């Protein structure tokens, strides 16, 4: 076959994610379709938060509206407080990259009930879809693996997602997956914004009515 007829693999950082197979809303809906009732969710600011709302918000979801880079650290503190619950942190690649140190901090006690899922569209979605570092082949799951996370991986297809879902929801962790999703702008589905309300609804649902001030 002549060289100019071979299919070319698009590796242009600015455009390659435009053609990724998986769609973020469908990915989160698929994972949460199997969620246990007592799953605790911490979700990073922006589109990942809207994806959770699209799939069905619950009181046991803590949405962030700021504090970029905090999602995994919040998940570590929560997982260490509640070893009897699965803790799922879902966040974007930009948010995650701002808290890379948390990959190391999670390894101090290695909470087996902690899972991090990064919906990785290689973009900063809220600021104009500029590329993040993952567009330049920065492999965050490999960073997590090098830090000692026992289960890590990158998911690029529906088949791989089916294999990952039981690990995400049940496997002894900490578990870290980056799920490569198409760079596209979905509708904004806003969760509640009041921080005290989000704090109290979570604690009330988890710890009972006496847990609110």
């Amino acid at each position, binding site marked *: 076959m002549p060289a100019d007829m071979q299919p070319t693999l698009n590796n242009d950082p600015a455009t390659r994610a435009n053609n990724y197979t998986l769609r973020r809303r469908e990915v989160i809906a698929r994972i949460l379709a199997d969620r246990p009732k007592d799953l605790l969710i911490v979700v990073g600011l922006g589109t990942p938060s809207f994806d959770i709302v699209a799939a069905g918000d619950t009181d046991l979801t803590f949405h962030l509206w700021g504090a970029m*880079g905090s999602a995994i650290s919040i998940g570590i503190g*929560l997982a260490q407080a509640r070893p009897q619950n699965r803790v799922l942190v879902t966040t974007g690649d930009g948010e995650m990259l701002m808290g890379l140190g948390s990959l190391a901090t999670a390894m101090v006690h290695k909470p087996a009930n902690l899972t991090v899922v990064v919906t990785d569209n290689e973009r900063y979605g809220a600021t104009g879809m500029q590329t993040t570092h993952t567009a330049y082949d920065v492999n965050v799951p490999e960073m997590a693996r090098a830090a000692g996370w026992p289960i890590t991986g990158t998911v690029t297809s529906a088949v791989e997602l089916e294999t990952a879902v039981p690990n995400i929801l049940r496997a002894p962790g900490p578990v870290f997956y980056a799920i490569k999703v198409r760079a596209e702008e979905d509708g904004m589905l806003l969760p509640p914004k009041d921080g005290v309300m989000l704090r109290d609804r979570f604690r009330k649902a988890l710890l009972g009515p006496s847990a609110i001030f």
Partner: protein
Amino acid sequence: MPESDVSPGENTHWSGDVHAVLKDLGVRQVVYVPDAGHKRLIEMCAADPDMVATQLTTEEEGIAMLSGAFLGGDRGVLLMQSSGVGNCMNMLSLTYACRFPLLMLVTMRGQWGEFVSWQMPTAKNTPKMLQLYDVLVQEADRIEEVAEIVEAAGRTAFDGPNAVAVLISQRVIGSKKFTR
């Protein structure tokens, strides 16, 4: 230039009292970036079966971790040096927006016989930076008052909820000495 740790860490007999106060307050998660002044307290918390001591790569992780701990029903404390307060600034918006309780024990650098001028800018502005984010600042200047101030700060933090920082003077912990 070799660094001598002879001075800092010597005056840590307040550490046992503070550890006892933290236990009485029901503190379970202790998160920290190591500091010579906190050395003994960190060791006591790490050895305590009722506590979970977690070291951080940077101080702002601690603000976030303790917020998650509180969501799960745990009380916590952040142990750090004043240089790290600058690292915490945007993360304190989490504390502010959600009114999470926060107890920080901050050992001061750049304040009393400081040898390294690079420590001065953050030290000089430590109380101001915390107050900009509505963190109550309580300063402990004498060894015998540290535990009492931590107890009062802890009650203010957990009963409020409020964000409270106890600044432990460099005079209490001793200034770092350098030798050639």
